[in-house]
């Protein structure tokens, strides 16, 4: 009799706590207080599974804490009370139950995990292909079927994009929180793929999600999702006004500087960064870390790109990747130098 009242009491407490925390979490999820708004079709099964996990968490937290709080309040030693607790050592039936039921539950959750994983990996053979390159500390996006290279990831809404990704140096990781999915980006020839199908027009950001050295925190790139018609217009515009096809070497040079990642560390306007600013650089007398001075001319700039560690400007670290220029032709470097020269 006495026992029953305790069981009823604790069940009520657990139920109340479960409902309170569960509803609280659900409301926070739905109102966007915790996860950013979902902007991809891959996010749908993921967010659904998050919702289910949060209910399970709410229940299990309330279960244990409910029993704990009830016990702390009801089963405490009152002042002057002697004697011990009720002597029972265990119960094999209940042990078996609380082993098998959780076992079945985790297996079920794992099954749901596998289902949702296969949902988000669904292949669309007509996916638009984007080759993604990550490097310390910038991203470049190349559309091989369209002949465009961009420093922004622009995607058409409701169309699957197949991202084929690699790194030029260390491990990075491609992540747009609103798209949910994430994939590490590896060096060498280890291309890794990620399929993303945007579902909300808008502006987002790729954020590198694997510590990749000094400027990891700032390794971001804009992501723009446009309706198909607007995307097609963007493609047209890029092809027509492709700066890399300009007759002016200064315009071409600026495009290469952004595309090949120079702009991540060298500002064009005098702002100090990880590397010296290019404003007013050409023709300058620069002091090196060993105290010598050097005239910044074409020869010096070519060496700085092909062999970055050869001479380090005083006050800066030797962090320019040694291979950053390996894909640059001599003509492209000449364009970059023309661009630098144009910056007063």
């Amino acid at each position, binding site marked *: 009799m006495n026992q029953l009242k305790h069981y009823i009491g604790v069940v009520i407490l657990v139920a109340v706590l479960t409902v309170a925390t569960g509803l609280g979490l659900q409301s926070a999820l739905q109102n966007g207080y915790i996860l950013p708004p979902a902007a991809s079709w891959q996010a749908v099964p993921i967010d659904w*599974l998050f919702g289910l996990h949060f209910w399970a968490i709410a229940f299990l937290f309330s279960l244990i804490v409910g029993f704990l709080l009830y016990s702390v309040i009801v089963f405490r030693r009152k002042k002057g009370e002697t004697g011990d607790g009720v002597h029972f*050592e265990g119960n094999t039936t209940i042990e078996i139950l609380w082993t098998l039921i959780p076992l079945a539950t985790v297996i079920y959750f794992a099954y749901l995990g596998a289902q949702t994983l296969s949902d988000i990996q669904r292949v669309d053979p007509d996916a638009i292909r984007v080759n993604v390159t990550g490097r310390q500390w910038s991203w470049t996006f190349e559309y091989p079927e369209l002949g465009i290279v961009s420093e922004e990831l622009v995607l058409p809404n409701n169309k699957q994009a197949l991202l084929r990704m690699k790194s030029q140096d260390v491990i990075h990781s491609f992540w747009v929180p609103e798209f949910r999915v994430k*994939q590490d980006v590896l060096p060498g020839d280890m291309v890794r793929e990620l399929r993303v199908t945007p579902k909300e027009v808008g502006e987002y950001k790729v*954020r590198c999600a694997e510590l990749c050295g000094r400027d*990891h925190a700032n390794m971001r790139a804009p992501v723009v999702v446009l309706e198909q018609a607007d995307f097609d217009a963007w493609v047209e515009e890029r092809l027509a006004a492709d700066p890399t096809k300009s007759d002016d070497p200064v315009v071409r040079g600026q495009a290469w500087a952004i595309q090949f990642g120079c702009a991540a560390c060298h500002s064009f306007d005098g702002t100090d960064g990880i590397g010296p600013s290019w404003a007013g650089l050409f023709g300058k007398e620069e002091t090196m870390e060993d105290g010598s001075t050097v005239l910044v001319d074409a020869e010096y700039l070519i060496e700085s790109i092909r062999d970055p560690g050869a001479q380090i400007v005083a006050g800066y670290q030797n962090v320019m990747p040694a291979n950053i220029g390996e894909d640059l032709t001599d003509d492209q470097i000449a364009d970059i130098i023309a661009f630098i020269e144009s910056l007063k």
Partner: protein
Amino acid sequence: MNILSLALVRGLLGQVVGTLVGMGIVTLVRLIFGMDPVWKAEPAWVLGGVVGTMFFMLATGVMGDWLKWAKGESTPDHPHEEPGWQRYFNVSLDHKVIGIQYGVTSVIIFLIAGTFALIFRTELIAPGIQFLELDVFNTYVGLHGILMIAGILLGVGAMINYLVPLMIGASDMAFPRLNAFAFWINLPGAVLVLATLFLGGFDSGWTGYPPLSANLEKIGFQTFFMGVYFIGLSSITGGINVIVTVLRMRAKGMSLFKMPIFVWAALATALIQFSATQLIGLSFQLVMFERLFGMNFFDPTEGGNPILFQHLFWFYSHPAVYVFILPGLGIISELLPVFVRKPLFGYKWIAMSSLGIALVGFFVWAHHMFTSGMAEYLRVPFMYSTLLVAVPTGVKFFSWVGTMWQGKMTFPTPMLFVLGAITIFLLGGLSGPPNGTVSTDLYLHDTYWIVGHFHATMFGGYVFPMFAAIYYWFPKFSGKMYSEKLGKLHFWLMLPAFYVQSLGQMWVGLSGMRRRIGDYDPALGIETGQLLITIAGYVIALSVLIFVVNMIISLRSGQKAPANPWNSRSPEFQLPSPVPVHNYAQQPFEVVGEPYDYGLPGSVYVNMSAAPAGD
């Protein structure tokens, strides 16, 4: 007093001398072979680090007996040890002294690691760089991580070394000299880790992934790798010692299922330490060789594979987290019956659950690699195995509930920390399944949610139980009582602050905050969460300072402690406080009943033989 009489001082001086000798050897070899330049910093520091550690150990004298045996000389069984505070700065073979050496070193390392955290958490209060440059931030984050891990390993060493022989009725560990070695090797290792601060730092986080960690500009990576390697030797040798001690040195009548439950936790922990630690040593050693000798294990442009490193590294580093928490969970099981005055519910199942967690823990490592680009087909099996760990863990939680149910509870400080531990470990554990599920982990990996998850599991599985243990056994190891008022203040500051910190970390992580970033995008709108996390960190630090003050004043002028302040059935509480030098040598005991039969009138666990007259 001659400062060189202290082994610690000799050891540190020895490390300095050994470092110079090692550097000298490398430079001499380069000179002889006509290599250019003659002075090359990185290999010099590496050999310096190795020889420095060797000289540290030799200078302390901890290897003394072994060297004598190698020469065929004999050594006394019970070497003379200085009484007083000098004991703790010298090589002792007494497991109780070694346990305290581990414990104090652990707290000091925690204070250093915690300070790094307060520094970078202060930077993170607002977007923009306030005072901490990004690459210094990266080094501090890595040092915070590895030093916390080292501190936890030391604290685990403290609990296990101090308690296991006392709980099983042994006068010491099976291999006292190995025990001393396992403590002292941590110190030169810690010095090497801290040396990274002066050698350019390391900007990879404690996980040290190549190719980033093969970056030749930062020599700090080498001393980081070496420091961890030597600290790992402590785990391996300590593990062997515990396994043999538990299997071979139990008192009469103490069958395996009549041991105090903490000993099961210690055994499971030792089994992991002794078999997994080699893998982190190996993985770090391979990166060291890649840097030093161009052996391109992990460089894909030269035929290597960076994912290989991750497999090797996580093969240890996942089971390692069970090393961090199994002892603490054992402390919870050990203390609950005493303060609830009824048996531990389902003792055998709890004992087996520790072994179960240890075993399953070896099959889950690739859940740290779901986004790594490893072979696709591995993701789903590792998800199943990872979620499986919840089953033996659940057995523990349900058993604790069964232990509390219908008890008669009191709430001195150790019990408060036990109850706090249960709720915090629960929070941490429940935040695990979304990480263990591949699809949701694709969002969560490398965010602050993960940071929240592991801080909660570490505080619940180690920090809170560690404080419970320190307060609980304080009277036994010191002979004095701690201040109950300060103990309660410590708890009531630390618990809510920790909840704010944890929930704050999980919240900003879900909102898009990545981990290991020294600056964040204001567009994320998480400044409030960041401020709360930092304030919580400062409150936690304050509570720890209160603990340190409590320890110091109680050791100096605490009330004299009775032999058994908690009315515990455990054998060590049947001895006087503090414990006599050789434990039960004068008072061996026989096990005649169950360890946790609180509430069963007339039941006895251990039958102590009569105390010697006039002691």
